[in-house]
């Protein structure tokens, strides 16, 4: 029982990180339709930010975290300006920015790989290691509550949803579509960065950490559905529980357990591509 509870807490914490990455995807997909696979690299960049500020410069955690998240907002905003907006303004479909963002993914990873030593680099825990899982869960819940309140209760959030529902009608209201897109990328980068920073103490900062996170987050998104913010968290939790319980209890070699998210991804894409939670129609 003890063992089961510990596993459940640890799965919840992992699920929170997946949920954050899924939320990052969702923030950008909802208003723009663009699937940005560079979220994994953004999480990786934030993890390296944690290494530089918290490990090398030993800044206090809240300060370091604040700087990393502010930097990620900027990264998202700049990415939108250089890799998305020029294509959208020329009237390209969503596939063009998706491919451009794959380019951003590769460039980001290579910049990090030539700038840092190839070994995994340590990032400190925010709180004592035995309480760290609860810290991750608490921060994630706060982010999701804030995101939910933003979308449901503020005019800004409603504007984002309006753009998701009907771009033309939203434009006719006077909603600035370019600004919504810029904000969604800045927010997406910050949320992905938060996920990367939170997971970094457990897995260390490494230039190859992005792609697995991108896949796990995308799987969580597909499970939960892109319709609602809560879906991202639900998808992340379900995926993490499935992963960890497979590793712990299923009689298969540990290496195969890494295939669980991909298996889930395939099952959901075939059986229920809209995800578990439907958007309110």
């Amino acid at each position, binding site marked *: 029982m003890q063992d089961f509870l510990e596993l459940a807490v640890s799965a919840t914490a992992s699920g929170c990180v997946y949920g954050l990455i899924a939320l990052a995807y969702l923030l950008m997909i909802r208003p723009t339709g663009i699937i940005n696979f560079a979220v994994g690299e953004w999480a990786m960049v934030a993890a390296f930010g944690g290494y530089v500020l918290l490990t090398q410069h030993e800044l206090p955690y809240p300060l370091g975290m604040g700087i990393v998240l502010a930097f990620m907002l900027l990264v998202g905003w700049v990415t939108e300006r250089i890799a998305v907006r020029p294509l959208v303004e020329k009237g390209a479909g969503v596939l063009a920015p998706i491919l451009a963002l794959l380019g951003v993914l590769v460039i980001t990873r290579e910049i990090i790989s030539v700038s840092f030593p190839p070994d995994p680099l340590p990032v400190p825990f925010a709180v004592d290691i035995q309480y760290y899982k609860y810290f991750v869960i608490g921060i994630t819940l706060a982010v999701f509550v804030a995101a939910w309140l933003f979308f449901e209760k503020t005019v800004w959030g409603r504007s984002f949803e309006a753009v998701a*529902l009907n771009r033309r009608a939203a434009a006719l209201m006077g909603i600035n579509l370019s600004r919504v897109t810029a904000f969604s990328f800045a927010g997406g980068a910050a949320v992905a960065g938060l996920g990367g920073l939170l997971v970094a103490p457990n897995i260390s900062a490494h230039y190859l950490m992005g792609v697995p996170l991108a896949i796990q987050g995308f799987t969580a998104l597909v499970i939960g559905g892109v319709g609602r913010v809560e879906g991202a968290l639900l998808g992340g939790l379900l995926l993490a529980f499935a992963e960890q319980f497979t590793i712990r209890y299923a009689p298969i070699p540990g290496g195969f357990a890494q295939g669980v998210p991909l298996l889930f991804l395939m099952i959901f894409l075939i059986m229920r591509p809209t995800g578990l939670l439907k958007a309110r129609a």
Partner: protein
Amino acid sequence: MLHIRDLTAGYGAAPVLQGVNLHVDRGETVALLGPNGAGKSTLMAALTGTIRNRSGEVSFENHNLVFEASHAIVSRGVALVPEGRLVFPPFSVEDNLRLGAVRLKGRLQERYDFVYGLFPRLAERRRQAAGTLSGGEQQMLAIGRALMSNPRLLLLDEPFLGLAPKVVAEIRAALEKLRQTGLTLLMVEQKLDIALGFASRAYVLIKGRVALEEGTASLARRPDLRDLYFSLATAHNA
């Protein structure tokens, strides 16, 4: 108030509008007629900046709107009630109206009071999801939503399409009230009887060009009224 000169606009290589000239004076109600595919909705899109390829001049209160983005045009005081209403179905009536006011510079409560006064049915249903409203109520919501930005020029694209006669009368009465407040209206309307009874002047758009501009009173007396589009299109081709 609104002067359109040589406006060309379209979606692909071939422009739908091929040099449109028209003007609307302050306080006027002008109807825009024409057969399907003449470019009426494209003109509405060009006026509101939701179409990219535009050239020529759209002067509204001495600002050229041709180079402005849609949100800036709303700020200038032009609002469109689009064809097909385009309300946000999952949002409540009130949230739909709130979004209409994202560019509002005045007091929000005054706008709510104004719209709810014009359409009391919307007030009754303010918490209801827009998607659950009847077609007529959705049209009222679309008009109310456009009014939330406190526009000085209201564009309407076929506001009576597919509505029951009773609802048409209700919405007409509301538009009449709006006109009495001094609001300028430019309305796309296919049904000649409604358009001629409501507007003071009309333009007929044929194949992306203005084929006729006439006062509605004299237009209504035309002997070829029934075949108006056909005769104009024939004359246009000749």
